[in-house]
Structures are given as C-alpha cells and as structure tokens.
C-alpha cells in the first residue's frame, strides 16, 4: 500500500505540474506585432503607411489578366487572338472579345479582388489613422476613386468602409454606389456615414501619384460624365464644371509632344494628374512588353524575358488614325521588325499561309480571331516606351488621369449640353493640334467623331469600354463580334466572390 501511495504521489505531482503548462502565446520574431506597427510615431513610418494606400494600386492596372485587360479586350481597340493552343486560356479572351464573359473568368475575379483589396487596405489605414483629418480626406477620396472603377465595371457592388461590421457585405445598387462616391468627395450623409467636404479639405498642391483636390475633381468629372449610365440621370454641367476646376487651376498643361507622356521617365510630364507610379525594381506590375510583344520582340528591345505574343489592336481601330496623326506612330508597333542591332527578324515558325513569310512583320490586319491567328498578325501596343534591356516590369508610370482626358471630357460635356459649343470645339482641337492633325470644323463635332477622337487619344489607357457604353456603341457588332445585349455593359460579379459572400447578388443577365 505504501508503494501504491508513492505511485499516486508521483502521479499527482506529474499531473499537477503539467496541467498548469498551457503552451505559451506565440512569440513573434520576424514580423512586427500589431501594437508596435500601429502605435508608431515615427514620421517616416507614418508616411509609409499613407503611401500604402497607393502602393496597393501598383500591381495589375497595367498588368495582364485583371481590370485593364477586361476593359481593353472587351472594347473595340484591343484583342487577344488565339494562335493555335497559345492564348486559348480556357477561351477567356475570345469570350471577353465577344462579350460572352462568364462569372468564372479569372480576369473578372482578379479585377474585383484588385479593387477591393485596395479598399480593405484603405479601411485598415482609416481604422488606425482616421483621426488625422487631412489623411482621412485623402484616404476617403482615394477609396472613392477605386469605387469609381468598380461602379463602372461591375456596377452593383458592396460598399465597405472602415465602419462596416458585416463580414459578408451585401450588394448595393449602382445608383447608390454612385451616391457613395459623390458624398465621399463632396461631403454628405451616406446611409448614416457622414462625410466632410473632402474636396475642400484635400491638398491644393500639385502632388505626384497621390490624391489631391485636382485628382478628386477628375474623379468627380468622370462620375458625372457617366451619370446617365451609372444612375440614369444626366449631370453634364457638373461634369463640365469639375473639369473646369482642374483646367482653371493652371497646374497642368499638355505635354509638348504626345509621346512625352509615355516615355520611361514620364514622371515629368505636365499632363499627369494621377498616375500609378511603377518602378522596375520597387513597384513592379506593368509588363506591357511581355503582353504585346512577339517572341522575337525580345531582340528588338533586348528584353530580359521572352514576350507572350498576346495583345494587339483591331485593324478598324488602327485605321481610325489618320496617317499624319502623331499618335498613330506613337501608339503602335507595326510593319517590319528589327533586332536592336538592325537585323531583320525572322520567325522561322511563321504559318505557311502567312503572306509575310518568315520576315517578322506586324500587320494591322488579323486573319482570324480563332483558332489560328497568324503569329505576326496585329498592330502591337507600343504606346509606352520599352527601355532597351527592360526587365519584366516597366518603370514608366501609368496615367490613370491625364490632362488631355480632362480637356476632352469638358469638351464632351459642353457638347452634350450644346452641340454647337464653341469652347467644346476649341478644347477638342487643342488635343488634335498637338497630334498634328487638322482641327475639326464645327460641323465635325459629331458623336462618332468625338468618340473616335477619345479613342485615338486615350488608346490603351483603359477608358475605351466606358466611352463606348456612354456613346451607346458598346453593344454594336464589330470584327469577330456580333451585337451584344445591354446587360453586357456590366461585367458579372465574380463567381468566386459570390461563393464566399452569399449576400452578393449577380448582375442581371448572367
């Protein structure tokens, strides 16, 4: 019995000593704990947090398989033809071209994720740093800018702010989203959230790649210009006025030449109002040479990586440029292609039927959309300079808002109010003049001409789809595309998002 007691004593000691032994809290060694991160008073750290709002935008606005790709390939200015197995990609790009996009398209999901990730990030910043009024205004308006992309692409989307508690936020109707964007900028009460007049609070300095009063006005101008599409009522005058605020600031002007806006070091362009500040080392994501170049284009620009031979322009769009238009030469890679050393490039795998044979030649004409487009077919996107020796990402900044766009927007708004507006004509001709083409006559201020002018000026900058919709042309038939239903003016809500958030409602027609 004595032995048994000793046994139980040992047992008791063992059990007693270990029941107190819960595992300790996880120690943090190679990350920054939340309290340290958010409790900082270091001004550089705070500035880095503020910069975070924009850093989230670096990534895929100018990159493949996201919002930009959707806008471009769904419009009449760009296409990704299928070259045999290459660029089949589950049929996504053919469907997008033909407006047959499905809720499961990866690009549809990526575009949504891109915007809402940036919104989540801004909301996190607002939770911690929202008491700083200036920063709050900057963040709220930046968030509104991202909502402008969402209201344009997806229309009916959840409105998520830093005060939202619902972990599966429901769909908000497009007109309400419009209201949220407007109130976020000009102030007002949106569903209980009271916004200050952020437009007034924002810095009036000309900042680069960050939100200021002038960027906010362009956001408003875009919102108002598309008000008929977004909420069913017209706001032409408000659109014209918002543009005028920017023009009247005197801070921005047209760059001397069109190309100045798109060179590798385009940060100095006086035309930039808001850009995504790409850098080949620190802010990667703009990989246009890969997206549009032929495999051999690698040798033209001494690229470190082989291009994918994807994006090209449609022939009809290419032909909408006059020969004299400086923008044509500055926007496309066409014709015979040479290595950086001047040697004519040869594609030994050129298809037997290709009239250009092995000599690499980009022709505006594309033989077919699918299944066997010629590898050399299609004018390529050459609007941004490809630095000799460029790596996978470019350092050129991507203009989200540019002064020429503001001029054309004001022109359009004034023309909508009064088709004979003289100022509208002057503004359009300001842009045409820089391109080296003859001024429009008053009689040439037609819807088709205005739309085409915007197309030539804004090619590849991600605006064409919205423009086509606003001008009522998006559902028209064009090359390898039949007329589409008006419900296709909105992209579907991504299937992946509906799966995780059952409170989202799919857009009509899907």
């Amino acid at each position: 019995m004595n032995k048994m007691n000793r046994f139980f004593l040992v047992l008791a000691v063992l059990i007693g000593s270990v029941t107190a032994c819960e595992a300790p809290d996880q120690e943090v060694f190679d990350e920054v704990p939340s309290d340290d991160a958010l409790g900082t008073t270091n001004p550089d750290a705070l500035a880095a947090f503020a910069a975070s709002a924009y850093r989230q935008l670096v990534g895929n606005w100018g990159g493949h398989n996201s919002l930009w790709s959707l806008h471009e390939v769904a419009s009449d200015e760009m296409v990704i033809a299928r070259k045999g197995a290459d660029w089949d990609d589950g049929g996504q790009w053919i469907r997008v071209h033909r407006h047959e996009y499905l809720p499961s398209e990866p690009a549809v999901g990526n575009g949504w994720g891109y915007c809402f990730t940036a919104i989540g990030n801004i909301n996190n910043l607002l939770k911690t740093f929202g008491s700083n009024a200036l920063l709050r205004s900057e963040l709220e308006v930046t968030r509104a800018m991202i909502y402008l992309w969402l209201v344009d692409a997806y229309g009916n989307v959840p409105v998520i702010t830093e005060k939202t508690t619902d972990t599966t936020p429901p769909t908000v109707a497009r007109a309400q989203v419009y209201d949220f964007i407007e109130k976020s900028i000009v102030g007002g009460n949106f569903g209980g959230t009271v916004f200050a007049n952020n437009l007034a609070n924002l810095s009036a300095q000309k900042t680069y790649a960050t939100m200021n009063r002038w960027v906010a006005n362009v956001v408003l101008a875009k919102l108002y210009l598309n008000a008929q599409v977004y909420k069913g009522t017209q706001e032409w005058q408000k659109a014209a006025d918002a543009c005028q605020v920017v023009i009247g600031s005197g801070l921005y002007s047209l760059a001397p030449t069109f190309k100045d806006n798109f060179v590798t070091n385009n940060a100095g362009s006086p035309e930039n109002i808001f850009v995504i500040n790409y850098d080949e080392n620190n802010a990667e994501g703009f990989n246009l040479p890969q997206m549009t170049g032929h495999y051999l284009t690698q040798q033209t620009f001494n690229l470190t990586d082989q291009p994918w031979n994807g994006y090209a322009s449609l022939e009809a769009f290419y032909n909408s440029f006059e020969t004299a238009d400086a923008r044509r030469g500055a926007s496309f890679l066409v014709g015979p292609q040479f290595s950086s050393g001047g040697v004519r490039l040869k594609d030994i795998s050129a298809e037997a039927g290709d009239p250009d044979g092995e000599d690499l030649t980009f022709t505006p004409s594309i033989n077919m959309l699918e299944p066997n487009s010629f590898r050399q077919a299609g004018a390529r996107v050459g609007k941004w300079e490809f630095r000799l020796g460029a790596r996978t990402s470019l350092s050129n900044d991507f203009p989200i808002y540019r002064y020429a766009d503001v001029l054309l927007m004001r022109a359009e708004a004034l023309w909508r109010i009064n088709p004979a507006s003289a100022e509208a004509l002057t503004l359009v001709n300001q842009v045409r003049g820089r391109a080296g083409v003859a001024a429009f006559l008053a009689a040439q201020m037609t819807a088709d001409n205005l739309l085409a002018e915007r197309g030539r000026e804004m090619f590849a900058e991600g605006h064409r789809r919205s423009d086509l919709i606003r001008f009522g042309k998006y559902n028209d038939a064009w090359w390898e595309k039949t007329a589409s239903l008006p419900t296709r003016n909105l992209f579907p809500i991504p299937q992946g998002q509906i799966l995780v958030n059952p409170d989202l409602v799919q857009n009509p027609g899907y």
Partner: protein
Amino acid sequence: MTKLYLRIRSCLLLLLMVFTVSAMAQSRTVTGKVTDSGDGSPIPGVNVLEKGTSNGTVTDADGNYSISVGSNAVLVFSFVGYTSQEATVGSQSTLDIGLQPDVTALSEVVVVGYGTQEKKEITSAVASVSAENFNRGNQTTAAGLLVGKVPGLSVTRPGGDPNQAPTLRLRGITTFGGNAEPLIVINGVVGASLENVDPNDIASMDILKDGSAAAIYGARGSGGVILITTKSGKGGGSYTNINYNGFVTMDQVANRIDVLSASEYVARGGTNFGSSTDWFNELTQTGYSHTNNISVDGANNNLTYSAAVNYRDNQGIVKGVNFQRLNTRLEVGNSFIDGKLRAKISLAYNDRDQESINLGAFRYATIYNPTAPIFEGTPDDQNGGYFQRDLFDFYNPVALANQQQFVGERKNSLANYRLEYDLIDNLTLAVNYAVDREDGLNGGYWSTKDRIVGFGAKGQARRDTYSNRSRLFEATARYDRRFGDLNTEILVGFGDQLRSFEGFAAQVRQFLYDGPGFNGLDFGAIRQGPGTEVSSYYNEDVLRSVFARANFNYKNTYFLSATVRSESFSGFGKDEKTGIFPAVSGGVQITELVDLGVVSSLKFRASYGVTGNLPPFSNLALANYGPAGIVDFDGNPLTSSDQFVRIQLARDPNPGLKWEEKTEINVGFDYGLFDNKLTGSIEYYTRNIDDLLYGVNLPSGAPNPFGADVNNIANFAWANIGSISSAGFEFSATYNGLKFGGITYTPSFNFTIYDKAVIESFKVGDLGLSELRLATPGAPGQNNNEIIRNLPGQTLGNMYGPVFQGIDENGRYKLSTTNPDEFEVVGNGLPEGEFGFTNDFRFKNWDVNFLLRGAWGHDLYNSYRGFYENRDAASKTWNSVVTDKTPFITQSPTFSSLYVEDASFIRLDNFTVGYNLPTKSNVFSSVRFYLTGQNLFTITNYTGIDPEVRYTDSENNDRFQAGLAPGLERRNTYATVRSFTLGLSFKIK
C-alpha cells in the same frame, strides 16, 4: 525550460561516461541435423546461433550444420515459419533438432508508442513489418521498404528521381492543410525526420493506422503514425556482431514517351534543321550507384551498443542528377543498480549532397525538334555554342540541363538521451530528451548563356540556407500489475516540444563570368529588383502535451485499452489553446471462449479514436505586419534616404484557429487458421475529419470574419473550413511455410478497398466556400481552365471538363460543351483500391522473393497527350507525342475527357534471388549474394510515363493546394527507372 534540458542532458552524459567495455573467449565442435518435427524433412537455411554470442552458422541443403562452441553453450535454432528452439550442448558432439512449425505468430511484440504490447493484446489497427519482410534492392528511403507491404499504406514515388522523397498516405487523404503524411517516430522521438535513419539500420516499423492507436499522439496523429525501431544491441550476455552489406545498382530508363523520329517529323511537315537527334537519349544515361553498410552491435553484461555507417552514392538516369549520403548511427545503453536504472544515448548523423537539373528538360527532350543539332556556333557565342532558336517555349534540353545547376546539402542529426528508473516494483519512470535538427544549404546558378532566365539577363545565382530544429522533452510513468486474472498497464506522461524554423536567402544577377556561380554571389552586379532577393525568417512554436493510457487484459480473452492526450499549441488561436484527444478500444479472443475447429485464433476488436492535425504555420492566428516592398517617397530612385520598406498585414488573421479533428471507428478481426499457419487481419474503418484546416478566400476587402478588427487584404486566411469523410476495407493474409518438396513457400497478400474521401461541407460562419478549383494544364494556351474542382457532396479531387464525343470530318474535336459551367466529372485521381502480393520461396541455400503490387480505379491526366499529340499548327515547331491512343486531330489541344486515362496497373516491383553460401569459416558466420531487379514490368493501359497514383500536383508549389489536386501527370515527370542490384552481405563472428 531550456536550462532544465541542459541539466538533464549533462546528467545523462555523465552516466554514459561511467560505461565500460570488455571482451570474451571460446572452442569445441558440435554437428547435427535440423528437421521438420511434423514430416521429418530436413530444413536448409536454419540459423544456428550460440546464445549470447555472435557465433553462428546456417544449415546446408540437407539440414546439416557444424559449429564450434564454448563450454556450457546453448544453441538457438531459428527459421521463418518455425518456432525458435534452444538446446543445451552439454557434453554432446551431435545434436539433432526437430523444429515445430510456428503457431505463435500472434505472440510477437508490437511497438505502440510510449511502449510495446503483445500482438494478441492489440485492440486497434496496427501493422508491423520487420526487417526480413522489407522490400529488397536499392532502397534509398525508409518508406521504400514498405511499398506494398501494409494494406492502407500508399507509398508512391512517380517517376524515378532519386532526389524526390516518396509521398506517403495512410488510409487515403486525411487533411486539407495539415500534415497529410503519417507522423514519424524514430525510437520514441516524435516528429523526427525520416532522413535521420538509413534503411539498412531499421529493425522494424510499426504502423498505427486507426484513430484509437494514433490517439496517443494527439494533435499530430491524424495522418497515422509510423514508429521506426532501429537495430540495436540485445542485453543479457556478451557478444559482438559485425555485419556488412554492400551492393551496386544499375539504373536504366524503363519508360519514355514516344515521339516522331527526325524523318517522320519532317515528313509530317515539321521545320527541318537538317540534323537528327534523339534528345531523350542525350539527356539520359545508365546510372551506376553503390551502397556500403557496416554495422557493429554487441553487449557486455549490462552494456549494449550498436554502431552503423552507411554510404550511398546514387547516380540517376539523368546526367547531373545524383546524391551522396553518409549516415552514421551510434547507440550505447547501460544499466545500473541491479538493472533498475537504465540509460541510453543514441546519436544519428546524416550528411547528404545532391545535384539536380531543371526537370523541364524532360519536357523539352520530348518535344524539341528532332532535326535540330545539339551544337552550332562556338562556346563563346550568345548561346554557349548550343543550338537555340527564338521560338516560343523552345529550349535546347541539353543546354537547359547543362546551363542551370542546382545543388543542395542537407545535414540531419538526431540525438536522443533516455533514462529509465524502476521506482518500485511495477512502476517505471522515464525521461527522454531529444534534439532533431535539419540544416540545409542550397545553391542555384543559371548561366550567362541560359535562355530561360532571359537572354539579356546574363546569369543569375542563388544561395539559401535553412535550419529546422525540434527539442523534445518527455517524461512518462508506467505502472504494470496483475490483479488475479486481470493484467493492467497504466501509462501517464508529459511532453514539451519546442520547434524552430529559420532561414536566409540571397539571389543576384548579371555576371561576367560563369565560374563563381552561387559560390560567389558578389560577382553578380544586380542585387535589387526582379530576379534578386535578400531575405530571412525565424519563428518558433511550442507544443505541450499530457497523455495517459490504460490497458487491461482479462484472462487473455478480453482486452480493453483507453487513451487520452491533451495538446496545447502556441500556434492555436488564443481562445482555442488546448485540444483533448480521447480513444477507447476493446477486443475479445473468441477462440478462448469457443472451439472453432480449424480456426485456431479469432480475435474481434473495435475501436474509436480522436486525433488531430496542427496548423501548418505557427503565426496564422496573429494580426502581425510583414514587409511589403520599398516605398520611395519622392519617386526618385537616385535619392535613397527616403526609401523604406513599408509594412502591411502579413495575413488575414484567424484568432479562432484550431486543430483539425478526425474521428475514426475501426472494427477488425485477427485470424489464424490451421494452427496459425495462415494468419491475417481484416479491417473496416470509417472516419470523419472535421474542422479541416485550409487557406480559404475571403470576400475581398470585407471585415475580417473571425473577429479581428481589420479588413481583409490578403483575401485569404487559414480557417477550419469543413469536413470530409472516408471509409475503407483492408485485408491481409500470410501463409507461413507452405511446402512443395524441398521448397518452402510463404505467400503474403494484402489489399485495400477505399471508399474515397467525400467532401461533406465547406463552411465558415456566414462565409460560403462551396468550391475549390485547382490545377490548370498550363502554357501554352491552357492557363485559365482549372481541371480539378472540389465541391461539397462530391469525391475529393474530381476532374471536370467537357466530354470528348469524337472527331469530326475536319479533324476537330466534338466536345459536349465549351462552357466551363457545363463541364462534367471526367475522372478522379484517387485509387479505388491497392494490393500487394509478396512471394517468398526457399530451396536449400537459395531464396527467391518477389513483390507484385498495383492500384486500380484511379485516373491520370496525361499532359503529354494533352498538349503535344495533335497535328496542329504547333506541330510544325514541336515534335509530337505518339501513343496507341493518339487520334488524328488537327485542332489545337484543349482539355477534355480524351486525355484522362484509367491508370490501373500491376507492377512487378521487386524480384530478388539470393544465395546463402554454406560456410564453415572461422571468420564468417554467414555470407550471402543477391540479385534484385526493381520495376521489372508494368501492365497497364495508361499511355503516359508512370501509372503510379499521383496524390499531389507536382507543378503546384503550394503543397496544400497540391494535395487537393490528385491525378495529374505533368510534363516535367522524371522518366521511370528499372534497376538491377547485385549485393553481398556477410556477418563476421
């Protein structure tokens, strides 16, 4: 706690220093004949050993033996299928022995975790495999020893890459995001690395299959447990054994993908470069490997010791793919205070070097233009003299294999210190401290002429190193006592494990000279931006456990066992710190109650057990901030004082994260017929795994669904997301010592039928997570169509696609649909069943052993066909794959049921012939020669490289996603290998 460990460790070391070593002596000759006591036939090959020594011999073809022995010698006669027998020599010079056929197969001892049990007492699903039943040949990993031996255990290594570890699955898929492989326990060290033990050094492996058996390992037991016991000295006498085993192996390509020859390719319209090259032959070779193993074990009174050295040099069938490994093991034990205090120290050290190439070379060797020469130009030109062309996805495979170089060094060490003390009769206390460590150093170099990193990239080099450590302290108390007819065993214990993971990586690019490579990163000019890296990490976690087990045996008829383990893990969410994992099992030996005639033994048993799986990373619950790239406040890269790395939430945290929980019910019979000549087991199990751990998508930007006050920005978090269920039936039978004339035949057969894992639900709070799509075929052109969809209510890993309905008159596909929303299930990569059939023959001094094994009911996506068999425009650039299933299609390939093939197969995995040299030498107690062929033939309708089951997707670097996408044979699959091994082993007296 660390100080405590140090103190314990130094105590143990002191004790071990007290150990002493001594020697021994002998002489006199005994002869005799060994026969079967049933039919009187002579038995050749019987081991005859002088007890307590290494002095021994083997009977000859007529059953005769002759041995010199010391005075008072006791001889031990042993042979498979017979009960071992001991005889005292006394003054006799002739000693004939009749051996009894073995009817006590059920009395063997089974390792069950924190102890052993007699097999007859086992009430859960446990399988044991000892060294004599291991697979033969050039087995480079411990897992390879078990292929086809244990029903329910899959060991797969598709292709023949010597540097690829096999994939293990016990009873199918048991987790989404936890550890899918069984927990490895080496000599009691929980969670040790298989790399720590050389296959030559293993004495036995015990596999805990069901939840009840594994529950003693709590939150790490869900994948099952493999307990490895290494060879060691036996106490109680004085002896020394020296064993040598050495072999050379020749590896040849067993299967390759057929493509068009140069002339066929040109006739078909392919671009003609005027040469003729068999690219696959250029890439491959006949590989020669050699392995040497020397081990010593012995005892001297209270001291036992063993030591082993293994050296392996494996050259694969691909030039530039190889490894060398030196493995050393040392174990010393001693006992004190009349055997009441026992101490043991074991050390294992493993040093491995490997080289490998970019396995994409296999793809290019298959599709590269057969009319292209290997070289053109000069070594100084832009391509290093290799033939290259600027075509899409077109890389000279020989250049690729030579211009990219990858090396790795890995050092594993395992030190284990154990002290046991019998405090009172029946009560034993034990403490164990183990340090398991793995250090790795990798290097990669992409030559300045290499085209894949880019023709303007001018070379790229990388070094990375990592160090993973585990420090485990365990203390147990065991109480054994018989109360009348009731045998009782009670075990309680405590464990504390600290694991740490750290690493460092650097990568640079743009070199002038190829020489320094990864040995001279400072020769690289570009150290920032794409293709470069400087990073490091360190984290650690703590697992603290308390466990107890009680076993009861009433009259060897009724058995009951109960287990509980509580696990507290620092990586769990703060409200879910501790999990409890209980189990209970019972059995009844029916033949003790009723006479069943020819059924000599029949035990029915049933068990219920709960086990868990830990989250794969330890910070997942926390809202920490991590580095998120450099911000340059003024946007001007020339001013650097304003550049900082900004931080952002490292992940979307889940403060409620907890363990995965598996509940398993197992019922089974252990049977013995004909005096237990025929023995085996039958098992049926059903299991539910709840709170599956997985990384799931969250609504982008929405508030965190797990209660953290942040909005989602990774839009991805680890959570306990749902449940799966599966079931299975396992059967095994062995007939011990079937006689045909002089031949003794022991067949052993097992099979498993799986009821594949079905996804019961995906659900986290309000979030809907109703689908996981994975695995696109890849470039060119098949990047966006995931072919695996995991959906609730369906079998895990279903492949979705259009159904192939034929070919139209223009050579175009007729498919059921092109709309992904209308795709149907076209296959599943998980097997419906597997079998293994081992056959052992002995005739005089000869033995023959072969293993047939196979799997059925699993599909494979044959990606070579899926990309390269069509006569489309691309077939002008790339060579075409030709199989007996290749149709005439002129369209570009797109995924459909056409490329999903039934991959059921039967394979002669292993065939060995051995000869035991009769020896009367004074030096050698046994000498054996053997020849083994591995992977000799495969019967299958599959037309790809290897019909072996693919549990993971080799192209998905996310190992969790990879595990949910079974059944894909990718284009980088290493060719299969057929091996022939010639070996010699002997034992020195």
